[in-house]
Structure formats: C-alpha cells, structure tokens
C-alpha cells in the first residue's frame, strides 16, 4: 500500500514489520520522531515489543546489545552526537557479532552545535565493524530496514541504515509499505545460535588473550586476533550474502536490483558522479541537464559503504574518463573518505590497465548548507572539462 509519510515513519514502519521486540532509544534531532513513532506502536499494542526509554544513547545501545545477546531482535536509532556517544558500544556490538539494526539519521556533529544534515556522524563510524547502508528515498529506507535484519542475522554483523536527516527524515513522499505477509516470508524469526540462558550458561565477551588457548573440552579456541579476523572476513563475504538477500527481496517484493550500487545513465557515461544517499538523486537532475548539453555524464549511488563493494565499483567505473565524488563528510586533513576509498578500489583493480579514471572530490551540504541543484550542475560540468583542484572543493562555501 502506498502512503505519503516522512522518512522517519518509513523507518518505523520497517522496524514494526520486522517484529523487532526490544527497542531502546534516547531523543536526538532529527531521529526523535522515528523512535517516538515506535513508542506509539508499542503503547497502542500494534507492536509486541518492549520499549525502553533509556537515559543516554550509550545505554540505548547497551540495552540492544544485551537484548540481542539474550535472543531478542533489537533496534535503536540515533543521530550525530548521539552516535558519537555510542561509539564504544558500536564497536562492542560488532565484536560481539550481534545482528542489531540501527538507523542513523545523518546529522552534522558538534562543535559547534548544528542539527542539520551531513554525513560526518556515520562516516566517522566507518571502521567499527558495522555494515553501513545508505538510502536515497523513503522506499529505500523501509526496504533497507527489512533487508538489514535479514542480512544482519544471516552474517551476525550489526547494520547501520543511514539516511539524510531532515532531507529524508522530515520530508514527506509516497512509498509502498510492504505487506506483513511478504515481510514474514522474507524475514524468518530470529533464532540465534546462542542466547543467554541459565540452561546453557556461557560467559560472553570475556577477556580474550592475544594468543589462542585451550578450552574446557581440550579444544583450541581462538585468540582475540582470530575473532577480529573473522569479523573482517565475514564482512567481506557478507557482500555476496547481501546480493543473495537482494535477489530474495526482489523475488518476493518485485523491486530492487543491484545490492551495492545504484547507477543512473552510467553505461555510456564518460564521467560519473558518485555519492551516498539523497544527494545522488539530486545529482540525477544535474545529469539530465548536462545530458541535454551533450555531456555524457551519469551518477552512481553507493548503497553499501561497508563492506566496501570495491570490485563492483571498479568494474562499474572502468574506462571512465572521470569520477566525481560528492560527499557530505570529510576526513579532516585529507579528503572525503568515500573519495579515498574509491581511489583505492580503482587503483587496486585498474592500475596499469590504462583505464584508471581521474577522481575529483567535492564536499557539499556540510551542516545542512543548502545544496542547490544549479551548483551541482555547475560543478559537474566543470569537472568534465578538467581537474578543478587536487584538493577537495567545497561547494557553496562563502568565504
């Protein structure tokens, strides 16, 4: 059924459809309406879940970590400084291999205070061992939440479903709310391999030594390094699992396609703009305009940022003249993290082939600065005419 609602409601409906049964949250703009909505569902009895209004984001993720360890399908959401305050728990959840799903409603981080959108919050959590998915519209938000639970539980790795604060979270647009029946078919009940129980006592996340050690049965158990290696290795293989999930999703719901990338007019493009989230949809308008001028451009949204779909990206961009990365975050002192990752993937797969594109980097929309479509047109056009700068260029900077 199609409804017109905002992005936070799309996320909340997704969580409800997935039957998450422990939800913990702490208010932070622009995430708040999402978890408020969930508290409504729970209090109204539309959702059979426990809703814990915790006293901090650190505790919100603590509740989810413990609930998941005890066998519950758990959910939380946050933004900006809330996510930063969770950081310790974010790492913990990954190391404990808990299949949590958390919505990150992207917002600029302080200081100074700013409640508007950029993606510095989730990008700063890149190396925590969480899968990161980025959404460009409400359909992707609700679908991604559902796909995320499936994938997280399949690979035992937590997932952040990231979407742009305000631009998506507070904007209303139509989207299809999947049938409960279909969601139940897609997503089986959560049955973890182990859940805390007096019947099968185990001590979880104990101090783990640098080296391997014999267990009580006389078998060799891992050391810390093996446990962490497995997290990395299975992050990598989760790319293939995500593709399996995407296909399964498409079979049941009749939509979806490429799990990692969302290309638009890229096939014959000589220049391809790349980004995360809603900016890639806005770039489509710029691409349409430049196409009318005869410039062969396309745009490609990256939906999976971690694990990084390096091979798919390199293969999609092979032989392009230029790649222009638009980012709402920055690795201060260098460039956008996506630009760095992308260059690394291109180098890895295309160095020496003569098909290595030139990569340029634009930084836009920091702290919610309006990204004018005309600015995207101008910058994209300029980038097709030659290198604008070796440094990342800030769009709309008024210095």
């Amino acid at each position, binding site marked *: 059924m199609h409804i017109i609602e905002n992005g936070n409601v799309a996320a909340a409906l997704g969580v409800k459809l997935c039957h998450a*049964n*422990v939800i*913990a949250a702490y208010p932070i703009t622009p995430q708040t309406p999402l978890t408020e909505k969930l508290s409504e569902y729970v209090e109204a009895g539309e959702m*059979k*879940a*426990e809703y*814990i*209004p*915790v*006293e*901090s984001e*650190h*505790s*919100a*993720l*603590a*509740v*989810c*970590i*413990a*609930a*998941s*360890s*005890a*066998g*519950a399908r*758990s959910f939380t959401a946050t933004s900006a400084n809330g996510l930063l305050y969770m950081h*310790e*728990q974010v790492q*913990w959840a990954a190391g404990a291999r808990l299949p949590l799903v958390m919505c990150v409603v992207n917002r600029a981080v302080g200081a100074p205070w700013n409640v508007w959108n950029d993606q510095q919050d989730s990008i700063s959590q890149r190396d925590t061992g969480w899968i990161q998915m980025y959404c460009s519209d409400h359909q992707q938000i609700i679908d991604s939440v559902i796909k995320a639970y499936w994938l997280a539980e399949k690979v035992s790795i937590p997932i952040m479903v990231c979407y742009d604060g305000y631009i998506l979270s507070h904007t209303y647009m139509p989207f299809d709310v999947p049938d409960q029946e279909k969601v139940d078919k897609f997503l089986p009940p959560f049955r973890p391999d182990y859940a*805390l*129980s*007096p019947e*099968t*006592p*185990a*001590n*979880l*996340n*104990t*101090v*783990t*030594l640098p080296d391997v*050690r*014999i*267990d*009580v049965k006389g078998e060799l*158990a*891992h050391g810390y390094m093996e446990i962490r290696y497995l997290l990395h290795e299975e992050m990598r293989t989760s790319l293939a699992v995500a593709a399996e999930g995407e296909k399964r999703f498409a079979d049941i719901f009749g939509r979806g396609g490429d799990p990692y990338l969302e290309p638009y007019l890229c096939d014959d493009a000589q220049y391809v703009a790349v980004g995360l989230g809603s900016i890639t949809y806005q770039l489509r308008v710029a691409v349409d305009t430049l196409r009318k001028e005869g410039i062969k451009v396309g745009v490609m949204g990256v939906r999976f940022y971690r694990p990084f779909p390096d091979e798919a990206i390199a293969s999609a961009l092979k032989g392009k003249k230029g790649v222009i990365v638009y980012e709402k975050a920055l690795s201060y002192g260098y460039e956008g993290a996506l630009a760095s990752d992308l260059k690394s993937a291109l180098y890895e797969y295309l160095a020496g082939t003569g098909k290595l594109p030139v990569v340029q980097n634009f930084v836009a929309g920091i702290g919610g600065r309006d990204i004018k479509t005309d600015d995207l047109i101008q910058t994209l056009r300029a980038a097709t005419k030659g290198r604008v700068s070796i440094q990342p260029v800030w769009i709309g900077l008024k210095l």
Partner: protein
Amino acid sequence: MQAKTTILSLPTEEFVHPGTRACTGCGLAIAYRVGLKALGKDTILVVPPSCLTVLQGLFPIASTKLPCLNVTFASTAAAASGILATLKVQGKDNIQVAAWAGDGGTSDIGLQALSGAAERGENFIYFCYDNEGYMNTGVQRSGTTPIGAVTANTPFKGKLQQKKDVPAIMAAHNLSYVAACSAAYPLDLFDKIKKCMDMPGTKYFHIHIPCPPGWGYDARYGIKVGRLAVETGYYDLYEIVNGEFKLTAASEKLVEKRKLVPVREYFRSQSRFKILTDEQIAAIQSQIDSKWAKYYKKDE
C-alpha cells in the same frame, strides 16, 4: 520474617570454580561466592570491567557456572535492562538478572546508567562490590575511596575527599530495597538477597570488600579487617526497605552494646591509612560518634 541463615543451612551448591585469577585472600571472591548461592541457578549476570572480570576467567574458560554478559564499563545497568526486556518478551519470569560492578563502575562511570535503570524501575538486583578503589587497574582512587586513603594516584597526601554515599543516592530513587553489606558478614548478605528477590523494581546492594593488595594488609586478616570496619561503627550494615532504614546483623547488635571499637584500630590495620595523623583519626572518630549517637537516640 524469614529465619536467619546459618553456616549449616547455607546451600552447599557452588557456582564458582576453584582456581580463579582473583588475588590471594580476595574479599570479593567470598562475597561473590555466597551471593551467587543466594541468587541461585536461574540467574543471568551482567558484569562490567572490574576485578570480577578477571575472577570470572579469560576466554575460553569461565570460572562462574552462571550465564554472564560482560559489558562496557558505563553500561552495566542498561545492559541489565536489555536482558530484562528480552526475558519479558520471551515470557520468562523465573529468571533473576543480577549485575555485579565494582565501586568505580558504580559510583563513577556507571552511575548514570544505574540511576536511569533505577528510575525506570528495572526489576533486577544491582551489586556494587566496594573495595574502595580502582583495584583492577592498580589501586587508583574512586568515588568511594575513603578520606585519608593512599592510592596510586593520591600517593602522598591520601584522598582528600569524603567517600561518596552511593546507597543514599540509590535510596533517593525510592527503591524497594537498598542494603549495605560486607564480605566479612556473608550470611547477612545471603539473607538480604533472599529477602529482596521478589521485591519490585531495582534492588541495590553495597558490599564492603576488603582487598589485601589495595588496602595493605596480610591476606589472612581479610575478614578481621572487614569486621573491624563494622565494629568500629565506620561502615554500617543496614537495609532500607521501602524507605525504612534499619541496621542489621553486627551493626544492629552494636546499638544494643553501646560500645564501638575505636576507629584507630581499623585504620592501623591497613597500610593505606598510614598517613592519617592522630588528629585526623580523632576527627573521624567524632564523626562516627555523632552518627552513632543518632542511632542510639533512634533506638531509645
């Protein structure tokens, strides 16, 4: 009223294995061992980093026979809330959730989450085992380190500030049950746990834990030192049941006796207090005396 447990009636089942990494003569090991007897088999534990993390064992071996979730330092009570929520949705109402955290993990870094959980009325038992310092990291001061104690980061002057009264903070949350216990009085601890297990909301236990390396006494004197803290009226055993304060066990008897052991004996039993001067001890003695004068008056 439940009958008082004696050594002979104390359950014999053990939930802790021998051969732990706890220090020789560890006071926590005594309180923990007896505490788990009271909690029983149907318990899920939550433990933040602390001496107990070490006592509990290093992967892949656990020293405790109960299921346990190790959590981050500041998140103990929140994690307990998460387990409770799960048990609720699973319809399991026979499982007790018990958090065991140290004094740093409670009075300092864990206080926010604990206060939040207590305010929400999360139905679990929280144990703060108070060895009065960050012993696991090598004896640094914590919020509950007493005035005058030399620690690794109050090396010459000793701690200059008062001990934080965490049970009073928790009592201010209007809990159904708050208890102050000591490793030197394990049966009192056992009975108090049994007493509160079916009470609603968060139950808070503060347990005074003698620590040989942290306090500076010969391991064999652990119980004696713990007992001295009580007999001098320096650390009191009590319970607050729905707001009603009552001294218990040895502290209750002290009211009848009207005679406290001079606190000097307690201070002189440990090297951490070696810098306390006679004047300082006299000042503390007079604080203790006036506290007890109130207890006596209440008793009249």
